[in-house]
Each structure stands twice: as C-alpha cells, then as structure tokens.
C-alpha cells in the first residue's frame, strides 16, 4: 500500500516570450526559491529532486547536470523526466511516486521551458518517426485547425464560440501575475479580427510560446502534516500512453483523454464531474481543444461544450470554473505547462490563488497534461486527506 502524499509548496516564475536576462538554470532557480519560500522550507529539507523539460527545444544535453547548482541537487538523488508535451504532467507523478513509495519523504519537482532560445517548431518535427513520417509532419497548427473544423461540423458550434473561450482565458490571465499573454480583449470581434493561420484557426485561438519555470514540493503524509499548515492532498493520478502513431485515420483522437478522465472518475467515485470536481485546470493548447476536450473529459454531453461556454458555466465565477489561471492559451512554457496546472490547482484548494481565486469552495481539482500522439496525464487533488 502506497503512502498518502501531499503538495506542500509551489513556485512559479512570471512568463514571457523571452528572458534574455537569465540563463536556463537561473530561470529554474527562481521557481525553486519561490517554492521553498512558499513551503517555508530550505533546500536542506528536500530529500530528492526530479527535473524535466522538452528534449531538443533548447539544444542542450543533460540539462539535469547543468541545473545541479541552481536547483539544489548537489549530492542529492533524482533524475530527469521527458515525455514530450506531457512532461509537466508526468513530472509531478514522478514526485508522487517517489514520496508514495516511502523511499523519500520530501521531493521537489522542477520544470521549465525557454522556448525563445531555440526553434520549437523544428524541434517538434523530430517527434515523428525519423524513417516513416518525420518528413511529412507539420506540427500543432494543422492538428488544431482540423479539430476546429471537425467540431464545427459535428456540433454546430461557430468561430464565435472559440472566440468566447479566448475571451475567458484572457480575462483570467489578466488577473494572474504569472500569466504570459494579457491582451485585455473585450469582445468576440477583438478575437475574430486576429490573423487566420489555417481556417478556422486564428492566431488568437492558439497558445503562445513562453519562457518560464515551475517547482512543487511533495511530501509523505507524516512529513506533510508536520511541515505544512496547508497541505494539498494528492488523491490519484494516471498516465495514458498509446502506440506512437500519428496517422490512425481518425480526424480527431479523443480516446486517451477520455480514458484518463474516466479512470480517475471511476477510482474516486466521481459520477458527475461538474458536481464532484470544484475546479479543472486542463492542458488546452488551442480554443478548439478546450471545447472538444470538455466533452472528452465528460464535463458535458457530446456536442454541448460550446453551450457551457455560451452560458458562462466554465468562467472563473461560474458553476464549474475551467482554467481560472488563464490556462495554456495564455501561457505555454511547454515542458512546465502540465505542472503549472497542478500548481495552480493546489493554490485554488488552499485559497491562495489571489486575484484569480474562484468564488466557489474548492474541495477537489482535476488537472491534465496532453502531448504527442495524444498521450494524456491526469491528477486529482483534494483539500481533505480522506
């Protein structure tokens, strides 16, 4: 039987498109110091450190070695995790495994991306099989444009609904001191005026490329109760991996997202997600993904996600807030993005999210990360230990 574990500290840097004022390990150091300060601990209290980011984005090998001085892993155990777009979702799972196993009492997870230092689009193309289909891969924009046109046809949603998702993201991001894009968008027209990339996908439908870092501190039950006034309990987590094939012939692939959510729901007695979960922080790299994935995560029936948005149900003040932080559409330091969802959810449970704290009482949160070949990671956090 695994030990119960809790998140006892979180830290983030602010996000922007370029941070020429710091090198990679210095960026990580900012997040580490913020997390230690939040937990009221020092680096001496940390038993092991796990780190993670995307491969190739910054063109530097063995990032964990270069980070030793700056994240405090000198003479401490730990390892680096890199699972593509889900890296930031897998990394907290790694810290949970370490503490739940009883091998370590207090584990810190540190993740970052510094996309302005490389060419993310070129790096992403190397995800595909080098012999089979790398030469034909076109990356994320085509994927989300196809998702948008498929969803419009399936559900009757319009481009205005995608624009409403962007407005919600922007309104929330403007309240979040760590968010990247804060555009002060006022109307649907403000979004619809943005440049068309591949119809129906506009520039403002997509996430930006961001630089930033995030750290969380995870402790075993005994240590968490001793060290922390506001531990956030980790109830469950799941990683869904499938065959590494991009071309399965379906216009959209929702199987993994659905499996991740349903596994978490089944194991934790969640029968009505909007009632049983207080806040969701999901990995949504595009407006259309947010809409379609509401349905994949069973937040509503098929074909109804755009109605939720129309009615404002997923607004920060709504019945079921989704991404009160502004989400990935506003901020996307890819390797860190999944873990920012977890950090933000922990802040919401503690009531410490500040200006973007939701108005409803937060008991349980659902967070996800998503990446290549539709891999999906999900976590369930809780205010109470039981």
């Amino acid at each position, binding site marked *: 039987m695994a030990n119960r574990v809790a998140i006892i500290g979180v830290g983030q840097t602010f996000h922007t498109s370029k941070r020429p004022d710091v090198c990679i390990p210095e960026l990580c150091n900012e997040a580490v110091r913020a997390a230690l300060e939040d937990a009221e601990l020092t680096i001496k209290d940390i038993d092991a450190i796990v780190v993670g980011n995307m491969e190739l984005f910054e063109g530097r090998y063995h990032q964990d070695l270069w980070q030793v001085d700056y994240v405090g892993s000198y003479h401490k155990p730990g390892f680096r995790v890199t699972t593509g777009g889900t890296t930031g979702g897998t990394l907290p799972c790694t810290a949970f495994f370490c503490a739940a196993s009883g091998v370590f009492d207090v584990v810190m997870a540190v993740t970052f991306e510094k996309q302005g230092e490389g060419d993310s689009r070129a790096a992403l193309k190397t995800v595909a099989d*080098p*012999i089979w289909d790398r*030469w034909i891969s076109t990356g994320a924009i085509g994927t989300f444009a196809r998702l948008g046109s498929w969803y419009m046809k399936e559900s009757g949603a319009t481009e205005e609904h995608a624009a409403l998702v962007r407005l919600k993201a922007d309104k929330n991001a403007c309240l979040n001191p760590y968010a990247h894009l804060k555009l002060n968008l006022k109307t649907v027209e403000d979004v619809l005026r943005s440049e068309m990339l591949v119809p129906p996908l506009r520039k403002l439908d997509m996430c930006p490329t961001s630089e930033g870092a995030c750290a969380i501190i995870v402790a075993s039950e005994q240590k968490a109760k001793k060290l922390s006034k506001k531990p956030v309990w980790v109830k469950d987590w799941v990683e869904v991996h499938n065959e590494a094939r991009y071309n399965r*012939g379906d216009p959209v692939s929702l199987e993994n997202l659905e499996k991740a959510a349903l596994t978490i729901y089944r194991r934790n007695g969640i029968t009505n997600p909007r009632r049983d979960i207080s806040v969701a922080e999901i990995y949504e790299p595009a407006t259309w993904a947010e809409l379609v994935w509401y349905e994949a995560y069973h937040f509503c029936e098929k074909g109804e996600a755009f109605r939720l948005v129309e009615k404002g149900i997923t607004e920060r003040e709504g019945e079921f807030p989704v991404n009160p932080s502004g989400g990935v559409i506003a901020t996307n330091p890819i390797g860190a993005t999944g873990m920012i969802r977890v950090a933000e959810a922990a802040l919401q449970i503690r009531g410490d999210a500040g200006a973007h704290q939701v108005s409803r009482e937060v008991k349980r949160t659902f967070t996800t990360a998503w990446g290549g070949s539709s891999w999906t990671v999900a976590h369930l956090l809780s205010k109470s230990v039981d």
Partner: protein
Amino acid sequence: MDKKASPEYLGTPNLLNLPFNWSAGPYLGKWLTELRDNGKLWASRCPKCQRLLLPPRIICGICQVRAPEWPDWVQLSGKGKLIEWEKVVAPQMNPSTGKIEPEPYIHGNILLDEGVTFQHYLEEQDETKLKKGARVKMVLKPRHQREGLVTDILYFRLVQE
C-alpha cells in the same frame, strides 16, 4: 560609466548540425527494400486482432503479440480513397535536411483499400479538385531514382474509377 543604463544581455548563437543514420530494422527495412526493388507495398498483420500494421512492425502494441515476418504479410494495392488533406502554406523545414520545403504543397491522409491509413503528398495541387472519398493511387519514382526511403513513393494521384 552610466550605471543606470540597462544591462546588455548576451547570447551565443549556434546551428546544430549532427549526422545520424537510423536503422530501419528487419520489418521496416524489408518494407523499404520491397518498395525500392519491386515497387511493392506491404503491411504486416496482427495474428490476434487481424489489423494491418503499417509501418509493418514486429509487435501489435495493443494485443502484445508478435506479428509474422515477410513474406507472411499482406500486399497492398496502393489504391484507396482520400480521407482528408492539408494545404501547407507556412514554410516547413525538412528535419532531415534542415532546408525549408518549397510551399505551398498538399499532403493527404489515404485509407488504402485493404483498410489501413497512409499519409503522403498528393499530385493534385488545386484544392478545389479534391473531395473526401476521392479515389487515389500510388505513383512511384522510376526504379533508378529509388533509394529505399518512404519518399520513393512520389505522390498519390487522383484517378477516375
């Protein structure tokens, strides 16, 4: 010296240029050899769930059973129908060469008649002539130009059937 002046942030530019040579292995390797030498397209088949595996591989990842080796494969006709296509208008780098591909170009997702999907360039560059479900067939490069690469297939051509 003006101490109030904003600091200068220096960076070091670099273009990574490393040679690689990835082994295709016996399954995909045989597939590429057959394509190059005989102009034939094959897929392996899972003995349990019976689905075709393309690219051919040693294992069905879902059933976790071993798939037979060539020649116990299924030969594909190279004919099928267009499921969807994408017109690429933004400059795309070919990650094998680091060079930007000439654009625009159209690539499509094709459901081969044997029931397995395959992605490739389309010959037709006029999007108005493309329709979902349109019949297409594989066109190979001439034998002497084939190198044992997937791109030994030149493109898929619209056909009337």
